[in-house]
């Protein structure tokens, strides 16, 4: 009995090994394949069979000789996703699955930027979102560092680095203080995409007029109208002059011309005259 115990144990080991071999998959696939890379699939057994590689992104079919590896050259499978390799022969069907991964190098981006036009000096008013793709237009789901930058014609640049999550990243930026066409760009690896963001002057700031007599009338003239960052407010912007005299109100709307607004109003001693543009109030003059 003492001699037979090791023998029985050895027999059990052999039996277990045989069982493991019997359960080994007949189709052996790589765990992952990079999109567009060459790969091969081992098909155990004897005789001829048909190999299908099936996924929503692609379908391949190839006659194979069991016992040999089926080689797929570069460029055969390029759409990222989950694929199932199925081998069918007269003796049955076997399958195994694997991932086709996006290439790691970005080749393209989808850049969504907004708005295309906005006033200067607004906090977090410019937003950008990006999706990063490889050369086969697979979304690169692995984290990837992207850089957003906003540059104005004077050369000032605001930069932000963001890491993608599930292929996407986003940012918010302030509009700059200077009017003009800014470039809003995103960079992922060696790939860039750019949008133009027109930054226009904001509301008038420190609106101020002066008055001088002109016969029976008053000549009212604003100083050059600028926003709070010193940008000239565009011609055509309406400036409103209002004269109050003995309970009567007279209002004149005047568009800016060459940066200023001017108008003549009746000269009533004791009148009060104010100036405004939109919701922005300017100074007030009491006419004596």
């Amino acid at each position: 009995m003492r001699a037979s115990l090791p023998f029985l144990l050895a027999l059990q080991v052999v039996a277990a090994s045989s069982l493991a071999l019997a359960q080994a998959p007949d189709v052996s696939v790589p765990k992952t394949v990079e999109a567009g890379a060459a790969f091969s699939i081992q098909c155990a057994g004897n005789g001829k069979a048909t190999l299908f590689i099936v996924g929503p992104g692609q379908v391949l079919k190839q006659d194979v000789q069991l016992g040999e590896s089926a080689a797929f050259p570069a460029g055969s499978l390029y759409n990222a996703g989950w694929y199932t390799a199925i081998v069918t022969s007269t003796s049955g069907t076997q399958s195994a699955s694997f991932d086709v991964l996006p290439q790691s190098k970005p080749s393209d981006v989808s850049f969504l930027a907004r708005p295309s036009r906005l006033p200067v000096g607004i906090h977090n008013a410019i937003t950008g979102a990006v999706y990063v793709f490889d050369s086969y237009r697979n979304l690169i789901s692995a984290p990837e560092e992207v850089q957003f930058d906003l540059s104005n014609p004077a050369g000032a640049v605001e930069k932000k680095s963001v890491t993608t999550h599930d292929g996407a990243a986003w940012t918010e930026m302030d509009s700059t203080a200077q009017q003009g066409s800014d470039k809003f760009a995103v960079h992922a690896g060696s790939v860039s995409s750019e949008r133009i963001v027109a930054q226009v002057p904001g509301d008038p700031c420190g609106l101020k007029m002066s008055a001088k007599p002109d016969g029976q009338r008053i000549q009212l003239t604003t100083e050059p109208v600028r926003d709070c960052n010193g940008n000239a407010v565009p011609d055509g912007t309406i400036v409103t002059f209002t004269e109050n005299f003995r309970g009567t109100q007279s209002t004149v709307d005047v568009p800016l011309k060459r940066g200023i607004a001017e108008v003549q109003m009746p000269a009533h001693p004791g009148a009060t005259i104010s100036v405004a543009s939109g919701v922005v109030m300017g100074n007030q003059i009491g006419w004596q």
Partner: protein
Amino acid sequence: MMKTFKIAFAISTALLAGTLFAGAQPTVRVEQAALSGPRVLQDQTRSAVIRDYLRSWQSFDAALDQNRPDLLNADFVGSAKEKLANTIKEQEALGVRTQYHDRSHDLRIVFYSPEGMSVELTDNVEYDVQVVDHDKTTTTQRVSARYIVVLTPAEVRWRVRVFQAVPE
């Protein structure tokens, strides 16, 4: 805040019409959105995105089963549509059809772009895929996969623009 919401989606019979597995509706679980991004996702938008995504599985299944790329038009756009249409071309050339039957979806909206022009969601989906070679069914496989899906708004619905399985 990681509370899970179970939402039973009553997918209309009309949506299921034409599928080979009529009556076997997928179970749908929607996790609370884990949004990155400044834009608030309104409930109505969220429901529309999920409804349209689930509907896209119906047209995806029908298109690949019948080898008809035109069935993708309503629910797919951009690279997702091109890739699926190419798969259909490959299937036609090989004399193959595939039938996809989604059994369960575990969805989470992960990104709503600041300008509101795209929504990204993840879907831990279980489905059966059946391969039919020259009208002979070769095999049916049960698949569990994690999909990343990007949808963009069209005139009256959200369309799938990226539809890609990624490692779990």
